[in-house]
């Protein structure tokens, strides 16, 4: 178990050692977003904007215009929310080479409550032209996604979490923007996860196997561009889809998959996620249970979608 933000902190530090153009920005949350380690080693390349996310994004844009590769971090709710228009105008519209690494995405922020739990950031960021949106599953994949983002020319939004999450990928895994990963083959139904829900999809597939249901598991760490080919292939071959995300069912992974399917291969879908509600305070594990973001609920959703499957 490792928190994706911890993996980010390490990967950023490593990148900083390799490339003098890597700079980091934060908005008074560097201890939490884990950019502080970079700041300690490279004080001349670390810029704390204070509690001013709009200016942080603008400064990152200027640094990119000046040839740097800025990583700007804060909590997801402030990055995609408070600084939305700065991300739109100063990053996405000019295709600025800035990486917005938003930690504390989703309800597993926990005790801080609904005001701090971003359940809409993927939807917001995905709607912007030129924007790439990533949501890695675990620590190793986060490190690979951070490296891929640094090597990619253009704005990238990377959504990470607060708590420790199970490890799905190996340390030497790679990350390809726009590519999904088949984690388990299956022919009856496909479970598609992103972020920490991918580990639950694997767990659910195991439970379904016990019930004689052969579930395929896909991980889509790249929400945009979406690996439509992989999704459509799964739809054609299994005929039923369940999506799972720590995000609203509107506009994120579930929304993106449904859009792809509606145009490419209409298929019954069940979406696991926040059902158009804000979160609340509580321990992360209990919140996941309360809002139905569990392997058990994925199993139930798979059974439901199988009932709807066109045979």
């Amino acid at each position, binding site marked *: 178990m490792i928190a994706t933000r911890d993996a980010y902190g390490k990967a950023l530090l490593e990148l900083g050692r390799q490339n003098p153009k890597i*700079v980091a920005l934060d908005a008074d949350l560097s201890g939490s977003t884990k950019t502080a380690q970079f700041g300690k080693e490279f004080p*001349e390349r670390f810029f704390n*904007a*204070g509690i001013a996310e709009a*200016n942080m994004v*603008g*400064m990152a844009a*200027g640094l990119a215009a000046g040839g740097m590769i800025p990583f700007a971090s804060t909590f997801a709710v402030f990055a995609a929310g408070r600084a939305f*228009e700065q991300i739109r*105008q100063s990053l996405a519209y000019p295709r600025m080479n800035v990486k917005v690494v938003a930690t504390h995405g989703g309800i597993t922020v926990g005790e801080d409550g609904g005001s701090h739990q971003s359940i809409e950031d993927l939807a917001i960021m995905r709607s912007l032209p030129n924007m790439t949106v990533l949501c890695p599953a675990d620590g190793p994949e986060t490190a690979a996604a951070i490296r891929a983002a640094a090597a990619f020319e253009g704005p990238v939004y990377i959504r990470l979490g607060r708590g420790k999450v199970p490890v799905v990928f190996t340390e030497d895994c790679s990350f390809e923007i726009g590519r999904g990963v088949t984690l388990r083959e299956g022919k009856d139904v496909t479970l598609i996860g992103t972020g920490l829900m991918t580990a639950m999809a694997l767990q659910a597939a195991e439970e379904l196997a016990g019930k004689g249901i052969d579930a395929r598991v896909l991980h889509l760490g790249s929400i945009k561009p979406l690996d439509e080919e992989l999704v459509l292939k799964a739809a054609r071959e299994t005929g039923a889809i369940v999506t799972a995300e720590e995000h609203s069912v509107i506009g994120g992974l579930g929304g993106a998959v449904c859009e792809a399917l509606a145009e490419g291969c209409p298929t019954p879908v069940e979406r696991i996620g926040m059902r158009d509600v804000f979160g609340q305070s509580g321990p992360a594990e209990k919140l996941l249970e309360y809002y139905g973001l569990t392997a058990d609920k994925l199993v139930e959703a798979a059974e439901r979608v199988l009932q709807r499957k066109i045979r």
Partner: protein
Amino acid sequence: MLSEQKVQELEQTARELRVDILKMLHRSQSGHTGGSLSAIDIMAVLFFHQMKHDATCPDWSERDRFVLSKGHAAPALYACLARAGYFPKEDLATLRQLGSHLQGHPDMRKTPGVEVCTGSLGQGLSQAVGLALANRVAGRRSRVFALLGDGELQEGQIWEAVMSAAHYQLSDLCIVVDCNGLQIDGFTADVMNVGPVAAKFAAFNLHVIEADGHDIDSLGQAFASAEVSDRPAVIVARTVKGKGVSIFENKAKYHGLAPSDEELQVSLQVLGAL
């Protein structure tokens, strides 16, 4: 101090730039007249005296950077860039047309010489701060100039950026505020008073210089003072919206209104271009 000859030369340049701006706006029948004319003397001094830049080498790393934070004054910027040779002057006739590289607001991806995308007020100064930081990280000897409107000072992000400019001691950053006193809805003092402007910047610990934004000599002195400042500098330039042709002067309605046929004729006459 600028020589008398240089002052006269820049005055003539500004007059010709005004003609370019008004012709361009008349042709497109869309765009911002008032704020382009209030800013043009400042920009003439910057582009044709103060700034180190080379149109034949727009990517020259040591060039000074100009950020038009009040992006709606794009016609003024395009007139300067064309005159400096970044693109053919004939292109000015395509302002705001479909397919033109001259967008309604400055676009770094389309127009040679434009450093960043601006237009959504309040965002340019943050980018100027970032550019100055990048220059520092890269060890470049390059200064950054950001032109703001006084109405734009109503945006909270401006003060976030001013705070960061002072915090990071960006002595190579020079802000100019085009204080024309008007915005779309009327006088800035009536809509949302931003004054006292100089005192506000002084309170943020910037080096404040006051200037007449239509007096070439006054502007030249202000930029010279900014250059030797060990703090980020701000030139609070008193201007007149629509300056140069009395029919446009001090009228809020010309914020976003292009000149009519008749108004263009009058303008060309006044500016000695007929």
